[in-house]
């Protein structure tokens, strides 16, 4: 346990910084604090998303629908049964977990793009249902949801969501560093080979989906009780796209990369939105372009960049030897032939 924590001292520093950030100017302004809340929420979701995309290599394109379902479950339980929010949130966890479990089962036979699209369609069906059962969800009119605190300040919300993000990270990280994590990576790389070497892909894929969706639903519940109003739009594909952008810009398969990317991402888009409001849509154009540029030129994302910087500092001579011994790969050794052999 101490070793687990010691290896995370970088995380400790980052967290400390994030914890004091809303207290130092200029970040102590309410709108910056609001951006921080949004960032931490997106970071948490991006971690849960990366847990699937970066490990078992399945893009859960219905992610927002599961998160939103968690939000609705928590909201409805507080509204109808008067339970405290801290308790009702677990209704969100359970519902999202069940949905994740079912999705895991349904998409089991698919790989790659088929799994992504199957999850997407499930999400769209969920969204459609939520929109249509308006007696319960009030449909597009929106459901009024009780909030955590009666204050207008974003500060308490920020610490709540920061803690939730931390828990999400620590739990999922611990899972990926256990035997299950190895199994995830194995089935993510090659399902048949994993099966042949004794990993049961069925079990691990379902486990992964369930866990990821549980955390998505938990954070979805936070969303509901923070914004105080829920519309089916929270489950829309565009919402998934936001999470996906953070995860891919941050770098898949690291968990911390997506979380780290969420903060600058939210801040830059919110800044663009509030300062360039004469140009509606410009923020998202920039956002889309950033995604395209990163995917084309540096698909490893931010996490890969950090690794590269660190490794180069540690093993510079080795690297030089390698480049001297063999011609550069990339350009000169490019293999044109075996794309589909």
């Amino acid at each position, binding site marked *: 346990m101490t070793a687990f924590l010691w290896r995370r001292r970088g995380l400790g520093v980052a967290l400390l910084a994030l914890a004091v950030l809303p207290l130092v100017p200029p970040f102590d302004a309410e709108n910056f604090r609001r951006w921080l809340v949004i960032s931490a929420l997106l970071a948490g979701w991006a971690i849960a998303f990366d847990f699937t995309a970066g490990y078992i290599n399945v893009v859960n394109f219905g992610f927002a629908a599961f998160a939103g379902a968690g939000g609705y479950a928590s909201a409805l339980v507080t509204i109808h049964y008067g339970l405290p929010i801290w308790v009702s949130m677990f209704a969100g966890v359970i519902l999202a977990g069940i949905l994740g479990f079912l999705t895991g089962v*349904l998409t089991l036979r698919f790989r790659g793009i*088929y799994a992504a699209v199957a999850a997407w*369609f499930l999400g769209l*069906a969920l969204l459609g249902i939520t929109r249509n059962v308006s007696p319960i969800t009030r449909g597009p009119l929106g459901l009024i949801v009780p909030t955590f605190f009666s204050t207008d300040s974003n500060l308490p919300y920020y610490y709540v969501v920061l803690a939730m993000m931390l828990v999400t990270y620590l739990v999922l990280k611990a899972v990926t560093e256990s035997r299950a994590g190895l199994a995830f990576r194995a089935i993510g790389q090659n399902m048949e080979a994993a099966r042949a070497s004794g990993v049961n892909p069925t079990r691990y894929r379902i486990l992964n989906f369930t866990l990821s969706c549980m955390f998505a639903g938990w954070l979805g519940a936070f969303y509901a009780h923070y914004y105080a109003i829920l519309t089916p739009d929270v489950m829309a594909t565009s919402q998934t796209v936001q999470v996906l952008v953070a995860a891919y810009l941050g770098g898949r398969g690291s968990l911390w990369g997506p979380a780290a990317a969420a903060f600058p991402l939210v801040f830059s888009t919110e800044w663009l939105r509030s300062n360039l409001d004469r140009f509606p849509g410009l923020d998202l154009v920039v956002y*889309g372009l950033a995604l395209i540029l990163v995917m084309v030129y540096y698909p490893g994302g931010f996490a890969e960049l950090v690794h590269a910087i660190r490794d180069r500092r540690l093993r510079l001579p080795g690297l030089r030897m390698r480049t001297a011994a063999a011609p550069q790969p990339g350009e000169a050794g490019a293999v044109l032939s*075996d794309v589909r052999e």
Partner: protein
Amino acid sequence: MSLAVQRLSREFRSPVTTGLIAGVLALAIFGVVRGGTFILVDSLVTGAIWALVAAGLALTFGVMGVPNFAQGEFFMVGTLSGYLVYTALSGVQGRPYVPFVTILMALVVGFVLGALVDLAVFSQMRRRIREGWVMNTFVVTVGISVVMINAHQLIWGTDYKGIVAYFDGPPIHVLGVSVALDRVFAISVAAVSIAGLWWLLSYSRIGRAIRAVSQDEPGALMVGINVGRMRTLTFAISSGLAALAGATLLFQFPSFPFVGVKPLYVAWTVVILAGLGNVGGAVVAGFIIALLEANTGFFIGSAWEDVVPFALIVLILAVRPTGLFGRAVRSVWEQ
């Protein structure tokens, strides 16, 4: 032709396919008997257009391995350029050739834009990316979609830019249903384009080269095909078809940033139903989905039009992961 027949007869040997076709026929008959012939006519018109959008999607995937999330945005580009061209021609509106000029311009705009996107994005990625091509390009197309939607908003705003109708003559009567001239126009455009695409892919030199690239890339290089150019062309054709569909349906789908969402969903449903990369199957599946939607809309309520097909597709996928007509999908495509 003999090829298509060979393949079809092979597919009909599968009980699942036969059962599904029978089910669709039953649904069609049921719809017509209980709801009226307009359900059939309706499905034919929308089905033809969806087939057009979906065929492009299937083509891009089959040839380039790109699962295009931005296909709906090329439909949007079609509606937009259709609207801009049509209003620019306001002086001569009413002349019978104007709608044709309009949709042709949309086709050209979609084609050129598609070619540019391929050159700027996918060709660059080809040089760099060795693994995870399918998922990486999928994410990139998500980015392209975001950029296109918001560029539309940035430049032309969010209001609806539509027209009442291309043709204002009296509707014609088919099977006891009156069909507006615009819908006759739409179905004719779709039929001609699908026939054209089919001819292009089956018999033309370029079409054969495109198929060659989809079947064996090194093989295509070995016989002297400029593979990169074929990919660009493929993406351009599929974008052009989507834009053509958008301009043709402008009377029903006024242009606004998010107009591509619906066609995107439908096209993906169709393509998954048909099996990714299967262009011929996409055309058939286009009609199936349209029929399903028309029936759902009539018997359950139009709010459920989207939900039922999605749920059904997931169920079909659970039974047949490669889609209705899909053969065993090659492993490269599953990355």
